[in-house]
């Protein structure tokens, strides 16, 4: 199946449509809430939460002894939340830094989860559990009710976001100041963290414990490159997330046996890469171009003013001088000399250069002009 066949199937095939809508919604909510995680410098929190969810899924299976993705979600939610509060507890109550706390909880919970998974696999009804699909996700298991659940959660978090927009924004920027204004920062903090936990838990079935944090961070990190406004950033992040979901599902459906979760994450990674290089304001490419151009302009101007200092000591400003007296001047190149001639600032004749009237005036006002335009 190629991509165009995929899009035909998207319209006709019920299962594929369900999965695509599911991954799109998941991408959108992850992008939206991931923006908060990125701006609060809690990027690793998502990773810790998703890993912490694994033992919850396993314990949920051990209790009900059958496969039920809703019950698994609740198990994941509970252990994800326990992990989160332990992380916060460690940070608040000990001298350990947040990266240490995150790393500790992440590995301990994940290790415990793997232990339980191994134990479950030895049980007689292990085959029907399909718990190992939670490690890397299996979008094919998405059914309509899962998608509805995602849609409802996305709707609620969108409403919360719009309602508390002002409070969440100021909390992100300056929590101490927010507190002095009389807002309950603890409530806001728990609110936003809970929604991040819920988004992660929702994504486990599709993307899996191991890769979930990329789903949260990649769209947000990419979106930050394109805008300097918080609302636009969140919107673009949601868009990138949804696109990663749809494109990833498409690629994985059109080529045999490519796992959906990793493909979605790789597509999100492509968004990040492209944004880091090509975004106009912050992208590496345009920054490098601007940097080069600035440097060249300055070199040109400095060469001109160096010439000016030589020329002004002569009665006739257009008195010719040897080019080699410029040789030791930093920033002087044959190319810049040619460029100065193109601007009609100087005249070149053999091994000699002479200043023109235009060049002389330009150089005389140069410093003022440069400081003015860069103010």
């Amino acid at each position, binding site marked *: 199946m190629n991509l165009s066949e995929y899009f035909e199937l998207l319209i006709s095939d019920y299962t594929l449509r369900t999965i695509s809508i599911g991954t799109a919604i998941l991408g959108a909510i992850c992008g939206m809430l991931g923006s908060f995680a990125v701006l609060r410098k809690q990027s690793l929190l998502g990773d810790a939460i998703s890993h912490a969810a694994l033992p919850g899924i396993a314990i949920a299976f051990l209790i009900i002894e059958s496969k039920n993705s809703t019950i698994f979600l609740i198990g994941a939610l509970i252990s994800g939340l326990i992990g989160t509060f332990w992380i916060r507890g460690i940070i608040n109550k000990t001298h350990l830094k947040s990266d240490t706390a995150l790393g500790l909880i992440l590995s301990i919970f994940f290790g415990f989860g793997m232990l339980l998974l191994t134990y479950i696999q030895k049980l007689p009804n292990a085959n029907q559990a399909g718990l190992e699909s939670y490690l890397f996700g299996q979008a094919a298991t998405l059914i309509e009710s899962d998608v509805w659940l995602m849609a409802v959660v996305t709707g609620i978090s969108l409403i919360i976001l719009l309602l508390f927009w002002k409070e969440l924004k100021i909390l992100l920027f300056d929590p101490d100041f927010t507190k002095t204004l*009389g807002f309950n920062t603890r409530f806001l903090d728990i609110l936003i963290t809970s929604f991040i936990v819920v988004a992660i838990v929702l994504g486990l079935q599709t993307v899996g414990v191991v890769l979930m944090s990329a789903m949260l961070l990649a769209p947000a990190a990419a979106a930050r490159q394109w805008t300097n406004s918080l609302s636009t950033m969140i919107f673009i992040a949601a868009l990138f997330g949804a696109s990663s979901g749809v494109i990833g599902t498409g690629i994985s459906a059109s080529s045999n046996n490519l796992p959906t979760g990793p493909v979605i994450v790789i597509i999100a990674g492509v968004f990040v890469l492209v944004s880091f290089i090509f975004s106009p304001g912050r992208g590496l490419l345009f920054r490098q171009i601007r940097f080069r151009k600035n440097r060249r302009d300055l070199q040109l101007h400095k060469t001109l003013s160096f010439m000016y200092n030589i020329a002004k000591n002569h009665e006739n400003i257009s008195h010719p001088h040897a080019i080699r007296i410029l040789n030791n001047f930093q920033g002087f190149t044959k190319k810049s000399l040619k460029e100065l001639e193109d601007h009609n600032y100087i005249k070149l004749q053999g091994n000699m250069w002479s200043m023109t009237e235009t060049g002389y005036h330009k150089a005389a006002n140069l410093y003022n002009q440069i400081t003015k335009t860069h103010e």
Partner: protein
Amino acid sequence: MPYNKENKIAVKIDDLTVAYDYKPVLWDIDLAIPEGVLMAIVGPNGAGKSTLIKAVLDILKPIAGSVQIYGKPYKKNRSLVAYVPQKGSVDWDFPTTALDVVMMGTYGSLGWIKRPGQKEKKASLEALEKVGMLSFKNRQISQLSGGQQQRVFLARALVQNASIYFMDEPFQGVDATTEKAIINILKELRKASKTVIVVHHDLQTVPEYFDWVTFLNVKKIATGPVKDIFNDDNLTKTYGINYKVAINQ
């Protein structure tokens, strides 16, 4: 308005004690700050200057003590207080503009959920103009210089329209022009009977800028009018033996 004996007490701090571990950061601070003074809090590094402000504003939980703003507990009179945190306490790469940051000063009076409207925008623009930053209103905050960022923070406090201003090192890392501009605004606030409390590092400028001073080093060393208590004796008690400073009065 210069201080005289009839002035009300704007901020009253009793027995304030703060500790992170076993060692106290602030010990038994009693302080009565009269209305309408421009007060410097001075002391060496680690003396607890920022901690004092944060404890007063309930950002940090004190071990013991009480804070009253015009005779009522801080939580009741919060709206009378504005705060300028240290510039370095926030991430200036946050995706927002100078005007947006100043508007945040209006959030407190708006309360929960309600969004700022035309009135708040107008007040914020006026505050930006007061600090000489109106032409930068739509500038992304990461593109502002250190001095400009400090002015934006000051504008955000001005728009809070408070009676008491707490400022944590507003002169840190700003050039002479910005320092002059800021001190002029502080003096204007004092003229309007506002009380301004500033954590300050440059002892040389204390007599020139401030009329009231508190010496702090974990404990309160002295507090009062600059002309009475800003002397070598108190400086030595605060900063250690043989500490001398040229006071150009």
